């Protein structure tokens, strides 16, 4: 970890994926994540891997489906409109219980939207996106270093639970450069063997089958229930979050990814004035770290959710707080960034409100 590189978020994810033993990348260019594919195009062939620019996003996710079925660590990346195109494939991958990593460097939507960073894909990432009863692991890093760490974790956890994992960043995080250190590379051969993979029987074992079509509803129901039993374990074991200054906080700001860094700027200014503000930053968006919100609701007087969207994570925060405290929202949309001053003003406004101040 000693040497630090100055790298864009997009490039750092690509390097982290290769070091995690990913040797198959299928993508299709789109701003603001193109540097990720470009890094893969340049480096995968040198490191014994495959970079393939597919004919479309839909083709790319189905290539991931194939590579994952054969037991390989595979990745695709895109930005919001491209991720929408991949939803059918993601649902199939989840239905076939296959691990893979999908990167979304999100941009303003809906539709073709804008090319600036946005957090308006929270619902799509955490509540399905594709059809059917399924979830993905969703990691939302807030720095280039955490992009690297979470990419490695996403591959490991996807394999462990046999399910797709998403890195949900945004255009700003993908485009910015920060100092970053890397872990020692893993070779694909060092990874645990996947006994379920369709990688050839060699006439030595029974056939493995990868499928998401079950015409007998009783069987499909049983498989879905089993999958949700696995999800329940994940909800217990895998939530990640960061807390800053929450012990004495009257108001807790909650935000993920880049918005959380903006929230830190606002918190620092408010703390200087003696306002007791803290931050809860979910790092996994699914599973959502609900428990910490429930716990902090005992002492905090109000929550403020900050997002680069019209308000999506705020719904999960409200569910977690469960009516015990008011949950306010502050956001910008369409690719606009919330400014620290806006968060600062909103906290001041909440403090003046009876609901928060009068308790």
């Amino acid at each position: 970890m000693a040497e630090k590189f100055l790298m864009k978020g997009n490039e750092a994810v690509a390097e982290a994926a290769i070091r995690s033993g990913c040797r198959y990348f299928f993508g299709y260019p789109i701003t603001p994540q193109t540097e990720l594919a470009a890094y893969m195009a340049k480096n995968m062939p040198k490191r014994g891997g495959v970079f393939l620019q597919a004919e479309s996003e839909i083709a790319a996710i189905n290539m991931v489906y194939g590579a994952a079925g054969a037991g390989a660590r595979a990745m695709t990346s895109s930005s919001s409109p491209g991720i929408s195109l991949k939803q059918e494939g993601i649902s199939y991958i989840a239905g076939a219980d296959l691990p893979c990593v999908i990167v979304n460097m999100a941009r303003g939507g809906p539709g073709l939207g804008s090319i600036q960073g946005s957090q308006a894909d929270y619902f799509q990432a955490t509540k399905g996106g594709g059809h059917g009863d399924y979830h993905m692991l969703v990691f939302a890093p807030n720095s280039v270093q955490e992009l690297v760490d979470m990419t490695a974790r996403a591959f490991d956890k996807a394999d462990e639970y046999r399910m797709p994992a998403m890195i949900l960043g945004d255009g700003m995080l993908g485009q910015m450069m920060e100092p970053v250190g890397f872990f020692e590379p893993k070779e694909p051969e060092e990874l645990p063997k996947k006994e379920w993979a369709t990688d050839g029987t060699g006439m030595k074992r029974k056939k493995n089958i990868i499928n998401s079509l079950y015409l007998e509803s009783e069987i499909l129901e049983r498989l879905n229930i089993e999958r949700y039993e696995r999800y329940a374990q994940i909800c217990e074991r895998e939530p990640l979050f960061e807390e800053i200054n929450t012990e004495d906080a009257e108001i807790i700001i909650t935000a993920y990814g880049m918005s959380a860094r903006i929230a830190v700027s606002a918190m620092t200014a408010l703390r200087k004035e003696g306002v007791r503000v803290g931050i809860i930053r979910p790092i996994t968006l699914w599973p959502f770290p609900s428990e910490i919100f429930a716990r902090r609701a005992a002492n905090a007087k109000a929550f403020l959710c900050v997002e680069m969207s019209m308000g999506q994570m705020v719904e999960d925060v409200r569910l977690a707080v469960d009516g015990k405290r008011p949950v306010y929202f502050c956001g910008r949309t369409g690719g606009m960034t919330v400014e620290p001053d806006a968060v600062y003003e909103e906290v001041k406004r909440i403090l003046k409100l009876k609901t928060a101040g009068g308790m």
Partner: protein
Amino acid sequence: MAEIMLAGFGGQGVLFAGKVIAKAGMEALKNVSWLPSYGPEMRGGTCNCKVIVSDGQIASPDIAEPDFLLAMNAPSLDKFEGKVRAGGTIIMDSSLIDSKRTFRKDVNIVCIPAKKIAEKIGDGRLGNMVMTGCFISRYGKIPLAKVVDCMRRSVSKAKSSLAELNIKMLKAGYAF
């Protein structure tokens, strides 16, 4: 900590200049962030990047009130002059921007004919490095030797003559 905004036309090396500051800043001060504007423009459009160098943690990489503005064309100066923190510094290329224009009174103004200096040394396209050298001298917390060292290390041997030319530009800007 310093928040630096660099702005100009696409093709002037605005992003590269920011990268040079960020890279040297990373070695001199530990934490840096570099945030580019990105759009459909490649050459000729407006372009900017925001660099923060700090010995502490960097929260938001976005900059509302820069301590330094490096303006490489008139539209950028018009757009960002008002945003500079009171007491901050504007470094502007006076070979591309009319230095007789009126400026805010509460900021330091450095008018440096960066493009002309670069032409005189041998390549007018390297005005960005003259601007960078000038910034390094005014900021004072990143040693010029560190910038020179970074420049040499980040250029391949085959292109080392280019590194040396860039270093000449940096030094000229630093001496201004």
